[in-house]
């Protein structure tokens, strides 16, 4: 079997899991395979996928970013507080994303200049960002942000609504929620960055062999700082989208999200050793987790059992990947 075939098989394996899962849930639950529920699944997957896209870049460089869950909360609360302070919604959200980007940039600088291991640096940021978010808000949700704040998270593209005779709105097509649109656009953009741009090539080179990349004239520091900044920025974006969905800025939001995001990248074939990974893989990985949650919910499986199943899926996926690599 050639390498390309093997890669296809790997991708196909993840995709096949996805299809099998969907098929099983479609049989066990009548309402699973409906337009409405599909949109729900997509919506629930956005956070994991958006965080996962940034994390994929970091993981390909051979690093890890544990701070995204906390950075998401900090960015979202920052946006909420700025709206409360009277800034327009779009500007506040932009500022929130920038807060995320700055957190990521700091991660990158600590890792490259102070030479701390990524695990430690981002573990520190995880605590600091969460702490700042809680301190700024007194651990209370920031509410009363107005309808505009909820638009990004709750609006949809192509929503078709018809007035019925009784004056009630009848939703003919729920539309594609904005978060799903954002997820698709960001996914495509990051995929292009990784596979079609010079910067992406450098990301792979750094992860594949950092010393060789350095001796080939790759600016390793810039590449790593760039990857962590991107991860932070996307965490900031995720935070804004998520808080907008809740129409409340929650400093406690996003706990443990980093683990879901890492899991989606790993299920999608990224190697924590660096040099290997793709956005399509991560997207599939995110949907595997999203569909599992949704389908198990619809079948009335308790959230504790869900954790057990998802944990086993992660272990199984990586085990298959290891087997594939060991076949030489």
């Amino acid at each position, binding site marked *: *079997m*050639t*390498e390309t075939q093997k890669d296809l098989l790997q991708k196909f394996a993840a995709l096949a899991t996805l299809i099998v899962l969907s098929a099983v849930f479609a049989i066990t639950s009548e309402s699973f395979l409906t337009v409405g529920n599909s949109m729900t699944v997509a919506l629930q997957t956005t956070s994991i996928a958006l965080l996962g896209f940034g994390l994929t870049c970091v993981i390909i460089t051979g690093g890890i970013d544990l701070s995204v869950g906390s950075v998401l909360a900090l960015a979202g609360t920052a946006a909420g507080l700025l709206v409360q302070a009277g800034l327009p919604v779009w500007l506040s959200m932009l500022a929130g994303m920038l807060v995320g980007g700055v957190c990521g940039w700091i991660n990158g600088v600590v890792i490259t200049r102070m030479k701390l291991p990524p695990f430690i640096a981002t573990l520190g940021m995880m605590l600091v960002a969460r702490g700042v978010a809680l301190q700024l808000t007194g651990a209370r949700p920031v509410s009363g942000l107005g309808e505009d704040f909820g638009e990004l998270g709750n609006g949809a593209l192509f929503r078709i609504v018809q007035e019925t005779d009784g004056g009630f709105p009848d939703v003919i097509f729920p539309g594609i929620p904005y978060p799903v649109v954002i997820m698709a656009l960001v996914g495509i953009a990051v995929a*292009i960055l990784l596979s*079609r*741009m*010079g*910067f992406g*090539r*450098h990301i*792979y*080179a750094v992860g*594949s*062999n950092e*010393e*060789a*990349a*350095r*001796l*080939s*004239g*790759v*600016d390793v520091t810039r590449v790593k700082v760039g990857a962590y900044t991107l991860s932070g920025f996307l965490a900031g974006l995720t935070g804004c989208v998520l808080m907008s969905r809740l129409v409340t800025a929650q400093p406690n939001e996003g706990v443990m999200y980093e683990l879901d995001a890492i899991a989606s990248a790993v299920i999608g074939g990224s190697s924590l050793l660096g*040099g*290997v990974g793709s956005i399509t893989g991560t997207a599939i990985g995110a949907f595997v987790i999203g569909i599992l949650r949704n389908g198990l919910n619809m079948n009335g499986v308790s959230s504790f059992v869900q954790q057990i199943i998802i944990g086993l899926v992660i272990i199984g996926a990586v085990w298959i990947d290891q087997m594939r690599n060991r076949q*030489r």
Partner: protein
Amino acid sequence: MEPDIVPAPRGAPRRPAAPVLVAEGLSKQFPGVKALDRVSFDLRAGEVHALCGENGAGKSTLMKILTGVYQPDEGRILYKGEEQRFRTVLDAPRMGIAIIHQELNLVPHLTVAENIFLGREPKRGPFVDRKRMTREAAALLKRLAVDIAPGCLVKSLPVARQQMVEIAKALSLNAEVLIMDEPTSSLTESETDQLFQIIRELKRDGVGIVYVSHRLDELKHIVDRVTVLRDGAHVWTKDFQQTSVAEIVNAMVGRSLSSVFPQRSSRPTAEVILKVEGLSRRGVFEDVGFELRRGEILGFAGLMGAGRTEVARAVFGADARSAGTITLHGREIRVSSPIDAIAQGIAYLSEDRKHDGLAVTMSVMENLTITDIPAVTDRFGFLRPGRERAVAEEYVRLLNIRTPSIHKTVKNLSGGNQQKIVIGKWLFRKSKVLFFDEPTRGIDVGAKFAIYELLDRLAAEGIGVVLISSELPEILGVTDRVVVFREGRVTGLLETRATSQEEIMEYASGLPGAGSRPTQTLAVTL
């Protein structure tokens, strides 16, 4: 375990010993390649049996089957007359077959004694019996006549010492078969002598040794029989006395090599390309200076650790320097990182391809273009796939890199082809000065010739070429002038045509007459 083969007494003829290890008709198929094709091999007690062949000839596969890393598709292994199946890597050592890998398998943060008995610690109840472990380790080291304290950490030992620890570990297994893979590749000459002394002792004790080395000239010191493999097949097995290095080489490559080094076509001129003055790095090298002229190949000779690599890395900006100026084409340049050096056109090709030359999980094309991504991207930073493919195909053709496709992952290519890719990526960057650090280490005899030709061609095109090599015949065969290093200083600048191995050795070792000592084992490059 008592050895059931009586060691041959000193001075007795060692011919008649029975084979201790026999491989019959071993075959192994990997995806797309038959790595071993019905190869038979036998090892007698108390002999050193050399296994020769180019990279990819099947030596590694054979060794891995003999030690249970791989299972053969066909054939069988007889150990002390009984058929054995090694199902795991633990089976072979337990029965007395030990292997010392080229890359040593020691745990750096544990002590020498702990490493020797790793996984087989002597116990007293549930606890490790440290006293006994230290005592037994000391006894083993004493047997090898090496002065290493059992309690010191392995990471504090130089590589040669670590190798002795590996040998001690093998002895502690009561090994009757010892497989050594390129044991001298990182040893200095006196350390090599010491190793040979130990090998002779082991032979006397009846240990059978499979010896794999690219340095064919050293075989004469220890080897009894030679087996040559080519393309996964057995070519012949002969007594070393009845063959010659030339015959072995011919069998390895399957044709006779007309000459070892190509005719030089470039002519040195008086024009200085690169001038280095007063280069120092505290504690590593001091006040190093040299000039590189247009059209010449400049050699860096010296013993292991003399500072040649370190000087090249400092000029390249990979390591910091504490003093010194670098002048390129008459203009002093500022170099504080590889990025600076590369921008000025200086390139350094590391001696360790896998560690810091190639991104082995990436494709041939991706490795070739990594030095100059801006040249294959548009102004928005998007890669131009057509342009990139064209570049890669051009260099694959130019350097005759043998790969099924430019999209093939580099880790699957042979050492020689990998080296060509490293060279290719620097040619693509339009480098003006290239430092080649041991460019022919671990690559096939045939591929070496191609590399030499390439060095000559580069020099003829006006590119400055510095060749760092530990193999004196290579220095003599390829360079125009030689800078000799000793303990971080330049001790000699010699015209290659007017010098000899002996003279270079004198400057390199600081001992008059050092080069003519009979025990000297200078690697022969073929």
